[in-house]
């Protein structure tokens, strides 16, 4: 992503590019654990979608489809909130590494 020089910035730190946090890949913070989606256990209650602080739950229509790892920080809230006894989201080990990704 090309970063503006100081002359190109709007004065007063004002950011007019509403919604530009999509460029901020919060998934690069994740380390240690990541959520894994088990479709067969999912009751499509959307609790994970509702609770996820980073809008990293992928949905299509009325179905939960998985996790967007570009934005998932691995906080585990989705797994905690998942209601079924056999959870549809479980936290699994992930190799610790800094994930290098270019912005969308």
């Amino acid at each position, binding site marked *: 992503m090309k970063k503006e020089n100081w002359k190109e*910035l709007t004065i*007063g*730190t004002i*950011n*007019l590019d509403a919604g530009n946090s999509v460029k901020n890949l919060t998934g690069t913070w994740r380390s240690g654990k990541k959520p894994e989606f088990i479709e067969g256990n999912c009751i499509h209650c959307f609790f994970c979608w509702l609770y996820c602080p980073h809008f990293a739950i992928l949905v299509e229509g009325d179905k939960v489809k998985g996790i967007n790892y570009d934005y998932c920080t691995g906080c585990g809230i989705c797994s905690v909130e998942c209601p079924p006894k056999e959870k549809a989201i479980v936290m699994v080990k992930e190799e610790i590494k800094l994930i290098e990704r270019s912005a969308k």
Partner: protein
Amino acid sequence: MSTQKILNGNQTIAEAVRQIDPDVMAAYPITPSTAIVETIAKFKADGLISGEFVCPESEHSAMSVCIGAASAGGRVMTATASQGLALMWEMLYIAAGLRLPIIAAIANRSLSAPINIHGDHSDTMGARDSGWIQIYSEGCQEAYDNFLQAFRIAEHLDVRTPVLVGLDGFIISHSMEVITVEDDDEVKKFVGEYKPVYPLLDTSRKMTVGPIDFTDYYFEHKRNQIEGIENSPPVIEAVGKEFGQKFGREYGFFEEYRMDDAEICIVVMSSAAGTCKDAIDEMRSEGKRIGLVKPRVFRPFPHHKIADVLKKQKAVAVLDRSSSPGAFGAPLFTEIRSALYDYTERPKIVNYVYGLGGRDIKVEHFKEVALKLEKIADTGKVEEIYGYINLRE
């Protein structure tokens, strides 16, 4: 029609506020600026101003209210002094960083400890790197004139930077002076209508004010901020000139007093410059070739302009009403000495700290400084680069 009124410094600021009638005034009372806040509150209660008057629980909150109101798109002002300005500290930097043209009247007062309510420049000098434009006043008339000009400077589209106007605590804030108060309509016309640039109340435009920056953007945003104050010198000059054309009192970055054929010179700001003028008049009548340079704008500092005036002097004494412990001289001195460095022709220069905690500086003290300057000019030697005036040694 302008009118002559007998007002003290605080009242002149309040009078200017009444004439400008900003959208929001947020302030917490503190000596010696209390009467500014008190008078504005009275104007509001009497229906003489229509702007919102907010009295929060502290100066930190007062500046926070100013920042919020200015971000929303309002013309905003506050007044404080000393510990109040100190309590505003972190918010001062935010006001400047967000390029909000907030105006603050500061009745300059010393900082604790020990507790002291009297005038010196410790409060605003401490804020000198906060990014605010700083203008200092010699008397009540200048405080009024500077305050009116502050809005024009701060709100200029190339500048958009907060401005503080200093008036010495008690010596100006509480001293009566016959001043010319300009006509309400003429003042309104001069100050003009305020047009915010990115007001938050403009709901047609989505935006974020004050987002987080890490190593990738903070530096660029800071450089972008610095540009505002760097753009201000021509604006300050133009506004000072226009003020002169309209109201008959022209202002620049500094005032030169009897400098034409001067060989030695005293540099001093604010109220002490008035006393210094009397001292210089007396010494001139004794045939001494001495002059005064009175800086008015401290931020942005007019380095080259002031160095051009001082370079031909044999000896210069810079008098500071604040100290900068551990530094190579007090704030005004280090600026001026640094400004002269690039000139091959430059004077001997010394620094005296005076008037901390409101300690008097009198005509006799300026004469003592002149004697020292004469000795330095004669011998070409500086024995003591840094000293104190009217201090029990």
